[in-house]
């Protein structure tokens, strides 16, 4: 038993290490990819000085951020100020814990689930964490003792509340179809047809809400450079700023993974190994988000709110009813 437990621990630690490493590496190169891809959308070159094609740029950036002075503004709430970026980064990473990256692996007769924690309430776990993540933004903005940061934080919180609902509601049909809140189960439920086919409206609402959750253009009002400096992280420098950065890009990966899990059949795919399929799907979603960033302008605040409350939530509710009716009928 003890051996079992030990073995389980070892497997868990290995999985944790792999996932964490992949996420961080992914975040770093997602930044690179975003800059590169965005640059091409804008007929530019993008980073190309650090290493071939600027491939060492993430490392240079990391070194820069690690070595930069860590400033805490006068009058800031030091503890909260220091805590906020950690909250953002950690919650984003934690969300990946329930994402199945592959079917269970059978090794030496043991079945090892390719998920860190196959919670039966995985979906709720994700919602919980993503709600927690906004604390980082709101607290960071408040603790900075800066008008810009505070405004950014408030906007972040308001935006989060507005889109949380739509996000959750958009996934209700998925749960209804899968009959489970476990992500593994949801993936399993898409064995035949990915839910994107069954639930295109849900998919659309989910993707839009997810982008708003991750505060990306066109929903980047908490940052809104030309209005608020840099919004909630105006006062952050060095690695604390880096943590916000990592949080954001991990969040993108998580969202990509969740999109894959909920609508694109998770790790499922022909020919290639399941993990690769998942990664490809994540990359696909990320690229779509970058493309959107490169194309759309930022919404006005009232437009943002109107979209959330007047369009997405009603649409999601209607979608739930429709799905329910369809399920009953079929």
């Amino acid at each position, binding site marked *: 038993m003890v051996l079992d437990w030990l073995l389980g621990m070892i497997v868990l630690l290995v999985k944790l290490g792999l996932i964490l490493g992949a996420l961080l590496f992914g975040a770093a190169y997602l930044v690179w990819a975003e800059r590169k891809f965005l640059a091409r*959308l804008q*007929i*530019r070159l993008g980073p190309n000085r650090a290493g071939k094609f600027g491939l060492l740029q993430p490392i240079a950036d990391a070194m820069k951020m690690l070595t930069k002075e860590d400033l805490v503004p006068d009058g800031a709430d030091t503890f909260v100020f220091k805590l906020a970026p950690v909250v953002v980064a950690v919650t984003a990473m934690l969300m990946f814990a329930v994402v199945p990256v592959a079917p269970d692996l059978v090794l030496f007769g043991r079945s090892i689930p390719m998920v860190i924690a196959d919670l039966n309430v995985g979906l709720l776990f994700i919602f919980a964490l993503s709600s927690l993540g906004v604390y980082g933004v709101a607290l960071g903005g408040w603790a900075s003792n800066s008008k810009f940061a505070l405004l950014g934080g408030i906007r972040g919180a308001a935006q989060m509340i507005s889109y949380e609902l739509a996000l959750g509601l958009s996934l209700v049909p998925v749960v209804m179809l899968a009959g489970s809140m476990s992500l593994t189960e949801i993936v399993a439920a898409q064995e035949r047809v990915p839910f994107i086919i069954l639930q295109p409206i849900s998919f659309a609402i989910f993707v839009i809400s997810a982008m708003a959750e991750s505060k990306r253009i066109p929903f980047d009002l908490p940052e809104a450079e030309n209005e608020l400096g840099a919004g909630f992280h105006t006062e952050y420098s060095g690695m604390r700023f880096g943590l916000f950065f990592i949080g954001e890009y991990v969040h993108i990966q998580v969202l990509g993974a969740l999109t894959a899990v909920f609508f694109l059949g998770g790790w499922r795919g022909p020919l290639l190994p399941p993990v690769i399929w998942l990664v490809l799907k994540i990359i696909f979603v990320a690229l779509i988000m970058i493309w959107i960033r*490169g194309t*759309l302008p930022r919404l006005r605040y009232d437009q943002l709110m109107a979209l959330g409350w007047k369009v997405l939530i009603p649409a999601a509710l209607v979608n739930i009813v429709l799905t329910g009716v369809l399920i009953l009928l079929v």
Partner: protein
Amino acid sequence: MTQDPSQLKGKSLPPPRETSGAEALKALVTGFATTLKHLGRRPITEQYPEEKRELPARSRARIILTRDPDGAERCVACYLCSAVCPVSCISMQSIEGQGGRRMAAWFRINFGRCIYCGLCEEACPTSAIQLTPDYEHCQRAILKSVYEKEDLLVDHCGKDPDYNFYRHAGVATEGLDKGRHEKEAPPVNVRSNMP
């Protein structure tokens, strides 16, 4: 005929145009298509240290002090550039130079402060101070950015090849007495017998 009171207040803005769903979708698609098309184009970026572009003559970068067509310093140290400089990066001291010319004893521009706005060039009444397209003059030591007159002086006329302030000024300087400037009559002789 009664008038609509709202009209009396003046012209109100037209109501915002309603956008139909189709139009919105079309606009979205066009946008995405545009960016997508860009993806295939060759980047227009120029690689700075390897590729250096010749800047237009009117670009505003490093400041010089030019000379007049006769080769003398144009700057008369009138303090107008230092007065107009929004960041106070110009300072100087004027003295009486050779032949009664007013000139700068020293003239200093702190390029650490300069924002290359070009107001000094606009204010200069003698075309002495000019901004050039030469933008490569970064310094590692901050004090090296403080340029003195000898660093600023060049031996050409810059953008204005003809102007010579002292040929118009009407003040007597060595070699150019009163009445010999451009568009000037010979000095009045108050003792003249002419009526």
